[in-house]
């Protein structure tokens, strides 16, 4: 039973509650526990940087200091939200490399009777824990309801892989951790070209038409590869893809029904958990039809147009380059 410090972040409290619930639900199978950082505050998302950068670092610094205090045994701080993860990691990183900044933040935190020692915490994203610490072998062994026949688009978004200073995902352009995880769950994983493209972030709030364009790229991309649903690991991405898909359709004059679930929910389903327990059903875009393919019954699931046959890629002709480790 491995224990991790956990930073939920504002989103997972409410709009991404199902992410939190599903994560909690699968703890036993993964054989891990989480200890929430006591009295944590907002990480400032992308907004706080925009207004005051030093204050933003102080804001995050408080969370780091609190976590450090609480770190007995485990000094690994886990975040499920990509923005939270990036912000925590970014500040920890800059405090290590920029001594002037460190002095400023030490000063500020001291006023609150706090101190953070750069390097004292290992800040990681939930996917990193699941993929690298728990490992695929263990996950495979827990699968009771394989996601066989389900075509999923693995979607990483931005802030988990960029900037990846510790180089945890090998390569910020074409990560494969989530792909491999979903394969381990039995799903058919499409080679999703937009897997690390942007969901529009806060643009859905301040200039929707920009966001709709970005969302359209993702959803149409997933649809072109006949994905049944998009699997994500970030509350902001899920919110944009799910809650704004309707507005996007209206704006773009399209008619997509591309459900978007969290990877923890997919794991929960594969582990045989009840959809409700995993917070499934809170989506704007009904995941029912997709999940029906793996025999998961949701209330009021409607029919969905049969996916078109996927166009084949010619295999004869000149041989393709050997990939070797190039893609690792």
């Amino acid at each position, binding site marked *: 039973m491995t224990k991790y410090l956990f930073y939920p972040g504002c989103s997972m409290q*409410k*709009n991404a509650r199902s992410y939190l619930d599903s994560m909690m639900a699968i703890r036993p199978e993964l054989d891990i526990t989480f200890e929430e950082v006591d009295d944590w505050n907002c990480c400032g998302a992308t907004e706080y940087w925009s207004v005051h950068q*030093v204050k933003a670092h102080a804001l995050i610094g408080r969370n780091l200091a609190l976590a450090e205090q609480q770190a007995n045994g485990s000094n690994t701080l886990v975040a499920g939200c990509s923005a939270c993860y990036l912000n925590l990691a970014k500040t920890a990183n*800059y405090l290590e*490399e920029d001594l002037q900044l460190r002095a400023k933040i030490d000063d500020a935190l001291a006023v*609150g009777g706090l101190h953070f020692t750069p390097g004292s915490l290992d800040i990681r994203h939930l996917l990193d824990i699941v993929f690298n610490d728990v490992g695929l072998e263990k996950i495979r062994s827990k699968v009771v309801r394989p996601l066989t026949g389900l075509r999923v688009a693995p979607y990483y978004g*931005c*802030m988990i892989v960029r900037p990846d200073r510790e180089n945890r995902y090998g390569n910020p352009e074409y990560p494969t951790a989530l792909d491999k995880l979903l394969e381990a769950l039995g799903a058919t994983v499409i080679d999703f070209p937009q897997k690390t493209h942007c969901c529009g972030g*806060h643009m859905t709030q301040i200039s929707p038409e920009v966001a709709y364009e970005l969302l359209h790229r993702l959803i149409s991309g997933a649809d072109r590869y006949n994905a049944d649903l998009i699997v994500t690991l970030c509350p902001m991405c899920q919110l944009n893809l799910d809650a704004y898909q309707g*507005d996007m359709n209206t704006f773009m004059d399209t008619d997509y029904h591309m459900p978007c679930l969290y990877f923890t929910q997919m794991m929960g389903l594969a582990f045989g958990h009840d959809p409700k327990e995993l917070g499934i059903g809170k989506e704007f875009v009904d995941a029912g039809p997709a999940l029906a393919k793996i025999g998961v019954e949701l209330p009021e699931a409607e029919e969905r147009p049969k996916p078109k046959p996927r166009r084949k890629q010619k295999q004869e002709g000149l041989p393709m380059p050997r990939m070797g480790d190039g893609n690792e």
Partner: protein
Amino acid sequence: MSAMLNEEKNGAPISYMAEVSRATPGNCRLEMCIQCGTCGGSCPSADDMDHTPRQLFAMIRADMRDAVLASNTPWHCVSCYYCTVRCPQEIHITDIMYTLKNMAIAAGQYKKTIDADFSESFVGYVDEYGRSFELGLATRMYLRHSPLSILKTATMGFGMLTRDRLDFSPQRIKNLDQLQSILKRAGEIEEAVR
């Protein structure tokens, strides 16, 4: 960074580039730009920007301070960090965009726009409660900036509420005084630099 220090030594006035460079935490390497356009090519919202990031850096070098602060480019940055990881000169482009937003706000530019207002309101809630408050934020945005789409928002907000994905009232952290005192001090330090 080093370029900046030299100028300080000779007591020459700090160039605008050095100013931006200094205001950005870490070594942002702004002075290393070779104008290759990898940033502008990678940017998902480049189409909506007045200037590509590359152009903005050229303008910074040319000391076109006002034009830079007036540009909407930083405000269309979605913080996807594509430019930062792809830049062949390892320039911290996303961070520089944040710096430019800080400067624009400090200079009173962009006060009226939704972009800056959204950020500032968000920060306002965080300063006030220690947590973000989506419902409050969303409502405020639409009331202030697009009253016409208030209905659509309402339905969306309603959807969120029915799905139990939205709080009616903001969450408050316990030790709010501590956070606020820390932020107050940090704010003073930040001012002192300017």
